[in-house]
């Protein structure tokens, strides 16, 4: 399952005109909706090759945080730095360097797999559209299903296609919201493998997940959220399950919130 996307972030970063996105820094980010506090003083960072997991119950703020990281939402205080710039300053140039795979897969069911990929490639202003679409279909193991309507695909197939669509423009930062939901064991393991390979290529990955078993061994860093706050941050991906329940129950374990921003 070798990645066939020719342009990896490492390759692109070496070009003279590259936007330097090699570090994501979330600094003291808060967000409230009226009286409801969704996020409170969240800080962490992510570097190249890292897979950061956002863990927590429903309503802990994971989706809100991902939306902020994707520049779709602005924090009410604090800031997010993408390399050397913020979302407000960077605008489209920041968006060009990141990709978000939402829980709803952001595919048009009435279009074929190839048409979906072609639309997003052209929307992003990419060159060599036909070649990129071919490569993406191959990477999604849908090479022979390119002309089939997405409405006929299973969840796993759509997931693979959606992931390749997110990767079309070679983003340095990949954001995923509950990507393992609805996948069977085999597909989940395959996705985990793909993510590790993408990280090895030099990308930064931030994913929100419920699935603690998959998270184990996949994550290089775990950020545990409760009620919009970071209650624990762990530098390695071991014993996630135990640490998660410790943190949620508030019995300590791991580092103090925010102190681990490296």
């Amino acid at each position, binding site marked *: 399952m070798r990645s066939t996307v020719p342009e990896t972030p490492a390759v692109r970063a070496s070009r003279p005109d590259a936007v330097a996105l090699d570090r994501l820094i979330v600094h003291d980010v808060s967000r409230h909706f009226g009286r409801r506090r969704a996020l409170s003083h969240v800080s962490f960072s992510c570097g190249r090759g890292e897979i950061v997991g956002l863990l927590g119950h429903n309503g802990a703020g994971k989706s809100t945080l991902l939306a902020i990281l994707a520049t779709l939402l602005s924090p009410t205080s604090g800031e997010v730095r993408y390399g050397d710039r913020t979302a407000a300053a960077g605008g489209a140039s920041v968006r060009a360097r990141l990709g978000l795979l*939402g829980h709803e897969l952001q595919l048009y069911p009435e279009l074929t797999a190839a048409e979906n990929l072609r639309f997003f490639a052209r929307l992003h202003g990419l060159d060599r559209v036909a070649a990129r679409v071919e490569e993406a279909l191959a990477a999604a193991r849908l090479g022979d299903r390119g002309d089939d309507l997405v409405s006929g695909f299973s969840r796993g197939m759509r997931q693979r296609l959606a992931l390749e669509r997110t990767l079309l423009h070679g983003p340095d930062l990949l954001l995923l919201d509950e990507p393992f939901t609805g996948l069977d064991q085999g597909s989940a393991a395959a996705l985990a493998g793909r993510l590790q390979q993408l990280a090895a290529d030099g990308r930064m990955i931030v994913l929100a997940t419920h699935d603690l078993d998959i998270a184990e061994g996949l994550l290089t860093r775990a950020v545990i959220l409760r009620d919009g706050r970071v209650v624990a941050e762990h530098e390695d991906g071991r014993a996630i399950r135990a640490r998660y329940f410790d943190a949620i129950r508030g019995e300590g374990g791991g580092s103090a919130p925010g102190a681990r921003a490296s």
Partner: protein
Amino acid sequence: MSQFARVAWIVMQKDLTVELRSREIISTTVFFALSCVLVFAFALVRDGRTVVDAAAGILWIAIAFSGTLALGRTFERERYTDTLRALMLAPADRPAIYVGKLLGVVAMLAATEILLVPLVALLFQAGLLERPLWLAALLATGTIGFAAVGTLFAAMLVRARTRDVLLPVLLYPITIPVIIGGVRGTAALVAETPDVAMAQFWVALLFLFDVVFVVLSLWTFEPLMTE
């Protein structure tokens, strides 16, 4: 500039492709417009003859009501698949996305009107087809004005829970000048002594409305779509 046009074009092309495959919006919109026409017929036809000027009014009300439905459905589709977020995430010019959506909506409404106009002319014995160029000008400027405001409002309401009821609540008061212009212009064209000068006046006013509100929408699209 060509970047902007390119993005608008591919968004519109995508919308029309999706619509042509499923034909969901166009068929329900046309059928709904027909139902509107019938309901108004029962209200306004007496002894087999319509009240004067009713045909013009019925035509534009049917366009407004079915247009609101089409707008709601177009954006509901994007909301359901979360593709609106994907569109906003692209490093493309946000106003270009607005223009693409607007063109798609106008195309769908134009298709509805092509079916609706002969139907209304037939059912109400109104000379709608006698001055086709001026009628087309009225329909074009009116539809664009209605769709310009409607596309912006429908897009920004995607986030709201009560989007279904709020769209008509917001759209109708603001687009009443369009309805007035469309109805009075059409009525002037089909009157017993057609008043082309009057129709010209309304076309000019509607054109001005289009310019002002398309510009305003382009300007406010990005701040309204981001939180």
